[in-house]
């Protein structure tokens, strides 16, 4: 649901602890960077979920087209030798 008065959308990423990957938390509306950070804070980090926040304008995200799903992802599905579990552990190798 959108209407003309809606502010631009921003994607919110939060980091649970220092060094951890930033995880997508959701989407908020805001008119500028500062407001985006504050709205992200108020919407997604009020129960101790975060130590740091990234906000990214939604239109800066380049997404793959669902129609390209087969071209993008199918080729990897039948090549089990891409997975480490395909390989047998050499005897005597301990620290792999």
């Amino acid at each position, binding site marked *: 649901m959108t209407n003309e008065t809606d502010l631009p959308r921003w994607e919110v990423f939060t980091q649970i602890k220092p060094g951890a990957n930033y995880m997508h938390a959701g989407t908020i*509306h805001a008119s500028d960077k500062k407001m985006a950070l504050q*709205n992200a804070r*108020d919407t997604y980090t009020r129960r101790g979920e975060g130590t740091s926040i990234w906000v990214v304008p939604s239109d800066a995200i380049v997404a793959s087209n669902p129609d390209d799903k087969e071209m993008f992802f199918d080729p990897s599905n039948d090549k089990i030798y891409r997975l480490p579990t395909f390989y047998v552990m050499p005897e005597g190798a301990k620290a792999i």
Partner: protein
Amino acid sequence: MTEQQALFKYCVRLGDNALIQSYRLAEWCSNAPMLEEDLALTNMALDMTGRAQMLLQYAGSISGEGQTSDDLAYRRSEPEYRNNLISELPDNDFAFVMVKQMFTSTFEYFLYLALMESSDKTLAAIAAKSVKEARYHMAHTSDWVVRLGDGTGESNRRAQEAVNALWPYTGELFETDDVDRLLQEKGVAANLEQIQIWWRQYVIETIPAAKLELPSDDYQHTGGRIGVHTEYLGHILSEMQYLQRAYPDAKW
């Protein structure tokens, strides 16, 4: 007045300010112009409920009468409340709540910053927690005041109306009475004259940055310190205290 009685009154005053602000902010739940701001305002309300709870609990523990924070919140009548009048004014407009919270949160930021140095350990601990909250409230509302004042003709008009209507209620924040004087001597209370200087410095930079004008310092409302309130506090309490008044000691 003993130091203990003064400390009780001081904590009740700070607690009442938090409680009544919390009530007004909570009224924005589902009424803010956007979902994100709905959450921002109710988050502030929750911060203030927590602060009121700590301060009233502490007040009850030093009164010698053993009141709980609930006793103090729900079983005092209007003239026993000691909040500043500004916190009970109804918000008829989003610009109004933002200007009001900018004025009061800026006051609270400097107040609790000073109270971190209080010789009273409990008060200093509550201040250390509150100052972080107040700093965010101050930043969030100041940004909105600038956004609205420097926005459209309509948003500027509404923000200016709010500044004009609220300005005569800001002087009361800094009123010093016997409670303040006694506790300041002991290093417990904050020096409100100093806080007023910091507050004014911040506000006289923020208001022009928002393309708004500062009203003149003519008439200032007063009364909160002695329990003389606007017509609005009674309505707040009749709703807030309904359950405890109708069903004392109700539990669920």
